[in-house]
Structures are given as C-alpha cells and as structure tokens.
C-alpha cells in the first residue's frame, strides 16, 4: 500500500512539471501551428546553463533562473524570428525538419562544450526529504509541483483576463480576424514562442536537482512533452495539465512496480491505450 502512495505522489509531483512543459508546446502550436521537436533540447540547454552557472559561480539552480529565464526567452524569440518564421506557412514537414535539425545542433553543441559525461548540479534542497506516514517525498519534487501548478494557474489567468492572453487566443481561433482587430499576429507568435522557451528554463531548474544530466537527454523530454500535448488535445489547457499528471503517474508506476524495459515503456503503453479509445485527446467529448 505504501508503495502505491509513493508511486502516486511521485507521479503527481513530476507530472505537474510535465504538464507545464506541454503547456508551452501547446501554446506555440495554437498560435503558430508549429510543433517544436527541439523542445526537449531547450530543456537540456536550460539545465546545462544552470550547470555552467554552478561551476562558475556556485550558483544554486533555483537562483540561476534569474539569468536563465530571460536568456532563454531571448533565445526563443531569436530562434523564432530567424529560423522558424521564414518556414511557417510553407510545408508543415519543413518546420518539423527544421526543429529536428535544431535539436541535433543543440545536442551536439552541448556535447562540444560540456562533454558527454553525466553531470550533476547540486542544490541546497537536493537531499531534503519530507516524510508523510510511509511516503517519502523529495523536497525538489514538491517545489516543482507547487511552482508548476502556480505557473499553470498564472498562465490560465493571463490567457483569460489580459489583453495579451486574449490576443493569443484570438490568433489561435482565427489569425485573419485577429489581424483585422489590429493585433500584430507576428508579434504574438514571437512572444508566445519566447514565452514557451522561457517556461522551459524554469522547468529545467525545477527538474534539475538530483537528476544527472547528459547532452542527449533532450529527445526523451520532447517525446514526453509530445505525449502530454497529444493526450491533452493539443490546445486544451486543462487537458494538457491532466495529461501531464497521467504520464507522470504512469512513469512512476513503471519504475516502481515493473522491472527494466517494461517499466520504462509503461507511459507509452498507457498513451497508446488512451489514444485507441479517445483519439482526439482526454477532454474530447463525442457530443460536440
């Protein structure tokens, strides 16, 4: 029984951050129709930036975000303006190719600078544990959960109640009409992409404590994010957060209850099973 609680708690905590990762991708897809296959490599980039800042200034990852978030946001804006924007509106596959290429560039760039050895970035909370009955929770996971949910709620409010948020939704629903309202559609697309990458910098710091990092781990995060976004129905906010929790829990169950490869496969098996019955995502209802 205690194992069950352990798996559930661990899955929920990490799942919230997966949901946050996927919200960034979903927003970008919603306003630009771009699926960014280098998403996960930007997470690695964020993590290695934290590592660099630790090596140089002994900076804790949670402090590094003061630097990594603005930097990654700016990188996101530049990548969109100079690489992705010229491709948008042409072949969808061209954009996929481009972001896959970008993924390789990022991966190998990180490899060149940091080498291929797994590295760790210590944090002051890294080894702190919180014990609730039989369940042992790691403090970094709790921080990740709380911050991810707070950010998700903040994003939700931003989308509902601010002019910028309404512009994002307007561009998503009808870009032509949005332009006729006087919304600068190109600017909204750049800012959304930059925001999506900026969120990754935060998520990177949340996922980092206690996790060994390697230059080639980006693809795994990209795949997880894609699973979550597809489960959530691409642009459905609540669906995406729910999808994050499901994939997080599936992953925790897989590692705790099952041995070896099967355990690692569990999130994918569950994903396929859900897609068989709800091909348009979790929140899709047949009535509409």
């Amino acid at each position, binding site marked *: 029984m205690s194992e069950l609680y352990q798996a559930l708690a661990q899955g929920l905590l990490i799942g919230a951050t997966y949901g946050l990762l996927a919200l960034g991708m979903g927003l970008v897809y919603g306003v630009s129709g771009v699926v960014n296959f280098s998403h996960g490599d930007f997470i690695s980039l964020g993590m290695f930036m934290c590592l660099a800042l630790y090596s140089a200034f002994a900076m804790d990852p949670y402090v590094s975000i003061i630097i990594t978030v603005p930097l990654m946001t700016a990188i996101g804006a530049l990548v969109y303006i100079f690489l992705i924007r010229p491709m948008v509106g042409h072949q969808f596959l061209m954009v996929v190719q481009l972001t896959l290429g970008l993924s390789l560039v990022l991966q190998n760039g990180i490899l060149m600078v940091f080498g291929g050895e797994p590295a760790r970035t210590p944090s002051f909370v890294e080894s702190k544990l919180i014990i609730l009955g039989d369940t042992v929770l790691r403090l970094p996971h709790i921080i990740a959960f709380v911050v991810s949910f707070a950010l998700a709620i903040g994003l939700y409010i931003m989308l509902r109640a601010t002019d910028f948020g309404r512009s994002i939704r307007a561009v998503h629903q009808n870009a032509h009409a949005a332009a006729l*309202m*006087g*919304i600068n559609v190109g600017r909204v697309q750049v800012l959304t992409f930059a925001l999506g990458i900026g969120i990754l910098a935060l998520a990177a710091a949340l996922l980092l404590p206690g996790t060994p990092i390697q230059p080639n781990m980006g693809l795994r995060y990209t795949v997880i994010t894609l699973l979550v976004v597809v489960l959530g129905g691409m642009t459905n906010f609540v669906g995406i957060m729910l999808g994050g929790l499901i994939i997080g829990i599936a992953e925790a169950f897989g590692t705790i209850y099952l041995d070896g490869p099967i355990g690692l496969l569990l999130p994918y098996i569950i994903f396929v099973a859900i897609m068989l019955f709800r091909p348009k995502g979790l929140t899709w209802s047949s009535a509409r």
Partner: protein
Amino acid sequence: MLEIDNLVAGYGGVPVLREINAKIAAGEIVGLLGANNAGKTTLINSLSGMVKPISGRILFLGEDISKLTPQARVELGIVQVPEGRLVFPEMSIRENLLLGGINAHARKHRPQQMEKVIGLFPRLGERLTQSAGSLSGGEQQMLAIGRGLMAEAKLLMLDEPSLGLSPLFVQYIFEIIDKLHADGLTILLVEQNLNLTLRHARRCYVLERGQVAAEGDAETVKNDPRTRSAYLGL
C-alpha cells in the same frame, strides 16, 4: 476621407485589382458591387492592409497609408467587418467586443464604447457571457459589427453583411447600417446583393474582373448597362 489612386494589388505579384480609382467622402455611405471574384474582398483587404499594393496609392485623411501595417490602419480608424463574420467562436460576446477595441487608440475608451455598442444591439448586452460560437448567424453579424465599432471606426467597411442571413435579419442589419450612417459614420458597403445596396448606398462602384466597370449615384449605376454586364458576365 478615402482616396484610392490607381491601385494595383493582388497575391504573389499577380494583380487582381487593376488601376482602381475611387473616393469616399466623410459621412458618405458608398456601395461596392460586383459578382463573385470581381475583386471586392481583395479591394477591402487592400484598404485594411491585408493585401499589399503592387502600385498606386491609398490616401486616408490626406495621408498615404498604402505602406502601413494592418494594425496601424486599425488605429487610424479603418475597420473591416469581414465576410463570414469571423467572430472568435470560443470566446464570449464580451471578450469578442473587448478584442474589437484592443488597438492602442481605442483601448482606453473600451467601457464607454461597449455601452454604446450594447445600446445599439441590446440583444448582445443580454448575453455577454455566452460564447460567440453558439450565436445564430444574424446575432454573429451583430457581434461582428459591434466588434468593428469597438475599434472606434472612422471608416467602417462591411464585407457582405447580408450573406447567409434570413430576410428579417437582413432588414434589421441594414436598419442598423442606416442608423450608423445617420450618426455620421462613413461606411463602405461591399455587397453582392445589387438591389439591397442600391437602396441604402448613395453612391456605388461596380467592379468587374478587378476594374471599376461603372460608378456614380445609385440611380445612375442601376440604369448603367455595364452594371448588368458586370453581374451577368455578358
């Protein structure tokens, strides 16, 4: 107010409009007629800045606006109510109206402007929280016009406002258009429906294959044989 001077415009360098000359005076209601594919929508999209001119000029209040972005033109008060209404279906009526007034110029006056729009369309005011996608076609047209007014339009360009509406709603929408005109708003009415437009617009331009085939006051245009040929393609 608006002067179109030898405008050539189209898509991908291929002209759709060829040397259009037209004028709209302040407070006027002008009809833009023509069959399908005559270039009506391309013309108002050129005025909105959604289609870039190949040559020629567009003057608004004496200023050349032909190089301005769509946003800059909305801020000047050149506002389009697009064909097919294009309301934001997953947003409420209120949010649609707020988006109508999102440009830098209109943003400050949104509460007052919204009261005016609700005064004009009480039906919208009764269901501000309802999603726009759940409205009937006629209600969506009201919302699209209301959304255009939120932008503090000086020149309101209506693209096919009667399209797909029941006769009762068409009559209602055109009463509203007359009312806006009476209040001093300058209106460009783009319509396929010849008789309806001639009843409401003082002056008309008839487009045929991207060129002005006939122009003048409603009576002249009605009796001009070129109007008939533009419609029947004879």
